[in-house]
């Protein structure tokens, strides 16, 4: 009896301890956040920028989602969202979801399996569904193995894949994979989208603001805590940060605070909470391998050998960026190659001078030298975060007899120039939506991807990408992933300079915010965020 009483007391105490933080959370208030630019539209499926995902993810739900309480997005940290449960068939080619009952879209219409079907039919390329809900489809290649989506009644949906794809669940869990409403036309989704999420769009004024209010009928009872979220579009970074310092904003835009600026913020607003985290956006070099002089693999090899990643890191981010190759390196990244392997890659070894001597020898063998420099143009978008590394690259290439000239390109014609192959070398940034090899490799290096804008084609790499995609054993899969990374380095596909780390700051009264460390594109549902005031 005494034992039973003690057990009951311990249970009660445990419940109290667990429940205590929940009791402390306060309802109400408006979270005010600065936004860095004008989002091209509000339709997450049509865009490829954090400018859209961060404000509008809170309007939607996915079938499943990366656990918002966890810092690392990984297949082990996926929790139900619009789906209550899921199950794979034995062959791992069919993924069936049981859907939540009683969920309503913001316009009051019921959410059903038909919405899931039409969303993913559209994304996987079905033209009829696509014409209804989206105009552009930048991530079609994510669904390369999706053959068909079938429904069983209103509450069950099955994804049929042409081969096992363990990453498919992760793909569905990212911020770029919300479920859209079939009955809402694409134009509405771009201007005032309708979702099932914790917040409804009240107004999206171009160049001005985005106003979201609490969805009182949200299926997750007790959420969200906030009454509203006000995004103010402030293109000038100095004004944005001054607004944060003066209390006009409760939070900065994601990764808006560089390390030098962090000192200013801390000096002006000592109680600000600032967190530096990897963004899973990497700086990399595009090399036009289809035209002279870089159609010569020897010159490509020399160029890769000449790069000193540590110097880039020191100059650009005071040493905070992470060294890695195509995948985000551990511990923040789940799939990147281990440190000891990375150190064998060009640009990452301690002895840069040795690599450069080898590079110089290659160049001399090709007839170049101090009196006969190879003249090239280094093109990049005319934005500081692109231009700055390009300038450093030009400086480093001088050491191997390559004389670069900076060619700043207006953003509006940048991608067109790259796709026409009208460049020699380009400095580029690549954001990875989910820290997953399928997402990164299929999107950026697979020969048929519409986002492979350098037109990189390598049948061996395509085969390896497909092989790792179907591998169920994580350790075996990692080894294939690292092999792909190494081959991409050897082939100078897109030499990586570094993985960016940047800071996001918020006022001390903002609680419940968890920044995820291996992608900036996830974790913006804001349903657990509350204001302590």
């Amino acid at each position: 009896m005494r034992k039973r009483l003690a057990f009951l007391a311990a249970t009660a105490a445990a419940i109290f301890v667990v429940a205590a933080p929940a009791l402390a959370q306060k309802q109400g208030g408006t979270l005010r956040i600065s936004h860095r630019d004008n989002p091209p539209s509000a339709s997450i499926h049509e865009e490829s920028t954090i400018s859209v995902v961060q404000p509008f993810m809170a309007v939607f739900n996915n079938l499943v989602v990366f656990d918002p309480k966890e810092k690392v997005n990984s297949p082990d940290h996926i929790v139900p969202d619009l789906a209550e449960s899921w199950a794979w068939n034995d062959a791992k080619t069919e993924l069936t979801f049981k859907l939540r009952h009683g969920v309503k879209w913001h316009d009051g219409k019921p959410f059903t399996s038909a919405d899931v079907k039409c969303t993913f039919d559209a994304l996987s390329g079905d033209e009829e569904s696509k014409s209804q809900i989206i105009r552009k489809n930048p991530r079609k290649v994510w669904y390369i193995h999706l053959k068909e989506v079938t429904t069983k009644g209103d509450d069950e949906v099955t994804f049929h894949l042409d081969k096992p794809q363990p990453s498919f669940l992760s793909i569905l869990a990212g911020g770029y994979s919300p479920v859209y409403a079939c009955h809402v036309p694409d134009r509405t989704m771009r201007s005032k989208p309708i979702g099932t999420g914790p917040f409804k769009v009240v107004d999206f004024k171009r160049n001005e603001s985005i106003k979201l209010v609490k969805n009182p009928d949200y299926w997750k009872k007790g959420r969200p805590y906030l009454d509203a979220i006000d995004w103010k579009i402030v293109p000038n970074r100095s004004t944005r940060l001054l607004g944060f310092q003066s209390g006009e904003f409760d939070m900065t835009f994601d990764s808006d605070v560089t390390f030098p600026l962090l000192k200013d913020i801390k000096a002006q607003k000592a109680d600000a909470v600032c967190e530096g985290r990897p963004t899973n956006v990497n700086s990399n070099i595009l090399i036009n391998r289809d035209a002279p002089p870089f159609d010569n693999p020897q010159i490509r090899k020399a160029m890769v050998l000449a790069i000193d990643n540590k110097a880039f890191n020191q100059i650009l981010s005071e040493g905070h960026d992470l060294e890695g190759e195509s995948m985000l390196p551990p511990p923040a990244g789940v799939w990147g190659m281990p440190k000891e392997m990375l150190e064998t890659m060009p640009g990452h070894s301690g002895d840069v001078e040795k690599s450069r001597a080898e590079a110089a020898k290659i160049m001399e063998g090709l007839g170049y030298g101090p009196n006969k420099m190879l003249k090239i143009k280094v093109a990049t978008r005319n934005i500081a975060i692109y231009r700055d590394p390009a300038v450093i690259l030009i400086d480093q290439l001088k050491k191997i007899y390559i004389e670069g000239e900076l060619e700043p390109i207006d953003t509006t014609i940048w991608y067109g120039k790259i796709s026409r192959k009208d460049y020699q070398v380009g400095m580029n940034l690549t954001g990875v939506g989910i820290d997953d090899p399928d997402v990164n490799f299929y999107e950026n290096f697979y020969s048929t991807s519409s986002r492979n804008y350098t037109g990189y084609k390598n049948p061996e790499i395509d085969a390896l990408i497909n092989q790792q995609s179907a591998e169920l054993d994580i350790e075996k899969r990692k080894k294939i992933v690292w092999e792909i990374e190494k081959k991409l380095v050897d082939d100078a596909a897109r030499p990586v300079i570094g993985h960016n780390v940047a800071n996001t700051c918020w006022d001390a009264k903002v609680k419940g915010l968890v920044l995820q460390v291996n992608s900036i594109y996830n974790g913006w549902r804001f349903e657990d965020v509350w204001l302590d005031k």
Partner: protein
Amino acid sequence: MGGYLVRRFLLMVLTLFGMSVLIFVMLRMVPGNIADILVDAAGIVDPKEKARIAHDLGLDQPILVQYGQWITGLAHGDLGYAYVSERPALDEIAPRIPISAKLAGMAILFAVMLGVPFGVASAVRQNTWLDYLLRVLSLSGLSFPSFWLGLLVLMAAVQWFGQIPIYDSEPHGFLEDVRLLALPAMVVGFRSSALIMRLTRSSMLEVLRQDYVRTARSKGASNASVNYDHALRNALLPVVTVIGIEAAFLVGGLIVTETVFNIPGVARFLVEAILWRDYPIVQNLVMLIAIVVVSMNFLVDMAYVALDPRVKFAD
């Protein structure tokens, strides 16, 4: 006078027609269109997607047809649809006009209120410490870039008042307008005030040396009467011209100030629309600016008649 007005009006119409052709053609000479940008912004390399969007927006039609559609619509008050927001261009532009108009109006008011009296004082007290001080002030106004001055003002506001004026929603009432727009208006108007100050000073110095001013003094007129009734009125003609031109060309200053102070006016909107090649917005806004410039020139000419009875326009 009537004949002159008709001629001026017809000239205005002709000028605006020429402007419309120039705007339309120049905009299409710039590389890239909205279809390129929409598709490129999503990081997609797919010519078929671009072609489909261009077709949907009518960008694959002959340029003459596109021009005809725009001008016909404009004549009927239909400005078309904005490409980016997919809303009527009028609905996008109209709410922003009063914001920029208020800001520009306050800036010009500030410039005139500062520039004219300081210019007169500088001329009347030529080569005194006050003159030197005001000349330094006017030189500063001409040499400080608006974005730098704007940021400095914002930093000072954070430092001293702990807050900055962030435009949140449309201000209601005069006081609210002043609270939100006074600082940016001063930043924009400072440069214009410097120009007006320097011109008023040189114009006043020239007039103060005229015989009729000496005559007025010899007749025992007071300093104030000589300076303001006799000299200033005659010195104002070139100043009015500059005020008119400054008012018309204020858009350039507004672009920077609206960006730094985050004011959702037409100037910042225009830059964004140009970046996105949002033709309906750019065409209509630039036409609007052209109309303002042409009208300001017309009003300045009319002001000559009011200020100087000797000015007559021949029929």
